[in-house]
């Protein structure tokens, strides 16, 4: 039957990896996964794009310096009386590669570059923190079991029951009010930290459930029993025996959590409860573009396209990582 045939065909390319090298040096499962990833052309392309995007985000000031325009600079002289950019395609020109923002006349390219910086900073911080929290919770719940597992399961139930967006809407001003007085304007850095906290609090649940399941099955493995029979303590079992086997699922959830948080950050930006002016933010730009949809569609397309491509490449890369680490769940 066809499904059967394709399965064997797909497993076949893995075989040459298993062929023993001449030298007596074994290839770890990690090295094999890496070799598999390198052989995947889509993955490599995505990796280059993802890498380049991260660099652009990290070195946004350098990009701005090379490009010769800062994100705050306004070019009102290039706008018409209706505050729409002069010329075609939203004021596209040699000086402004992606045109200008209507009303304020800021350079769209720089807004997008800094928007990527905002987006990636929050997404990566949230992904790292929520993965760490999720792994800790999952390992603790899975390995210790009993009432600890019940308490963590209960917290998971609660977080799943809370509607994230409404809760985030309510939580953001509450957290702000706890730190600032109503008249103070919060710093952009504080807004970012708040977002990361909110994302982390809600984001660890998936990782925790996954890791818990993994730990539950791994702890029954005989090599764990062998370690216990040899007199190993809990720490040895958790960190030396279990953790090395958890890297694959952790990496996969992490790489798919990043695009998830990019989308979530975009959504909160869109609802204008995320990052505030003057820090550029893709979601907020899209939200503002709704008033200019007919007058200047480029103002919508540039940030929306960027956000879409950003999430798409991260998703593709995440899928490739999963395929490489777990050949059973091939596409």
């Amino acid at each position: 039957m066809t499904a059967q045939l394709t399965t064997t065909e797909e497993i076949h390319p893995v075989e040459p990896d298993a062929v023993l090298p001449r030298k007596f040096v074994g290839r770890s499962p990690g090295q094999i996964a890496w070799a598999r990833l390198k052989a995947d052309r889509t993955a490599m392309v995505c990796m280059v794009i993802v890498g380049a995007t991260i660099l652009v985000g990290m070195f946004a000031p350098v990009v701005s310096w090379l490009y010769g325009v800062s994100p705050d600079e306004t070019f009102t002289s290039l706008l018409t009386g209706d505050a729409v950019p002069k010329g075609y395609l939203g004021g596209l020109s040699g000086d402004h590669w992606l045109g200008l923002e209507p009303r304020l006349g800021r350079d769209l390219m720089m807004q997008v570059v800094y928007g990527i910086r905002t987006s990636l900073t929050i997404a990566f911080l949230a992904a790292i923190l929520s993965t760490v929290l999720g792994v800790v919770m999952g390992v603790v719940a899975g390995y210790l079991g009993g009432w600890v597992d019940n308490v963590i399961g209960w917290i998971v139930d609660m977080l799943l029951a809370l509607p994230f967006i409404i809760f985030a809407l309510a939580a953001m001003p509450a957290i702000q009010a706890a730190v600032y007085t109503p008249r103070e304007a919060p710093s952009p850095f504080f807004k970012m930290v708040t977002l990361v906290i909110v994302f982390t609090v809600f984001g660890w649940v998936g990782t925790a459930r996954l890791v818990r399941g993994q730990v539950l099955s791994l702890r029954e493995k005989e090599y764990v029993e062998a370690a216990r029979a040899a007199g190993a303590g809990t720490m040895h079992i958790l960190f030396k025996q279990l953790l090395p086997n958890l890297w694959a699922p952790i990496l996969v959830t992490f790489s798919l959590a990043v695009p998830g948080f990019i989308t979530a950050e975009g959504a909160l930006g869109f609802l204008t409860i995320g990052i505030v002016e003057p820090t550029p933010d893709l979601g907020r730009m899209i939200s503002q573009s709704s008033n200019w949809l007919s007058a200047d569609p480029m103002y919508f397309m540039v940030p929306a396209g960027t956000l879409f491509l950003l999430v798409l490449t991260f998703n593709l890369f995440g899928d490739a990582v999963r395929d490489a680490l777990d050949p059973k769940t091939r596409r």
Partner: protein
Amino acid sequence: MTIPMAQELVPSQRQGQPLLQVRGLVKHFPIRQGSFGAKATVRAVDGVDFDVAVGETLGLVGESGCGKTTTGRMLVKLLDATAGSIVFEGRDITKASREEMRPLRQDLQIIFQDPYSSLNPRHTVGKIVAMPLVVNGIKPPGGLKAKVQDLLDLVGLNPEHYNRFPHEFSGGQRQRIGIARALALRPKLIVADEPVSALDVSIQAQVINLLRNLQKELDLAFVFIAHDLAVVRHFSQRIAVMYLGKIVEVGSREEIYERPSHPYTRALLSAVPDVAKLGAGRIRLTGDVPTPLDPPSGCRFRTRCWKAQPICATEEPALLPMAGGSVAACHFPETGALR
């Protein structure tokens, strides 16, 4: 390599007390049965007694689910006994904590059934074999690597394979790695939990021979767990047959294989394929093994025994010396040699 012979160090033990003494060992697993949550207990092991002498192999045989694996796990303290005692070299280890067990761990090791799940796929062979030493903070004289390579050599693996990963080995080789790991602490007793049943028949013999050589060389005692009598035959001095959490017959190899007294032992033996006895006298057991949740009253084997009488349901037979020389628990033991 030179390994001091255990009996030279402790000569008195061979004649005196046994290395391992198990009395009334019980393991009950509480479970919640059915949807209404009635509590029930699985009587996995229900009062087991046996001894193992220095350098001796005791075969522990029975169908799956009879409690032999649970017994093995209790011996190496992977499971805590519900009741009964395990005395190792004169010390009761039944209630010993992890810290108290530390020195004894080195004497009591285990080999697992599944050569695939018993080796951590993310560790090199070197790391796997060295694990017991590292965990116990033992620094061998010649260095860890040299010690591991000695061990690999001892179990018939290429010491140069130190840096390889388990997935690069065959099932038999993996089982050898598991044996090397068990030997790392130079134990006096190894619980071998069906060490060959996951392997090809041709490989089984190799691994059994390896274990036998190691036993002679290192004066190891084994508790060899198996689900059929064929594998145990060439390796065990004494054999205990288990059924539903209890030992039904214990005896020397000759007694068990030639003059078994318990009907169950006879049934098990007749299940061993033998060209010479093809067809004739084959005992077919009918029915399934009863659930250990609610074992039959009296003799536990009565529900499948062709000799069962009313007394078997009311009175539990005690383990008594039989005519064949073995000790068996049966009201109506078989007599005479096996055809």
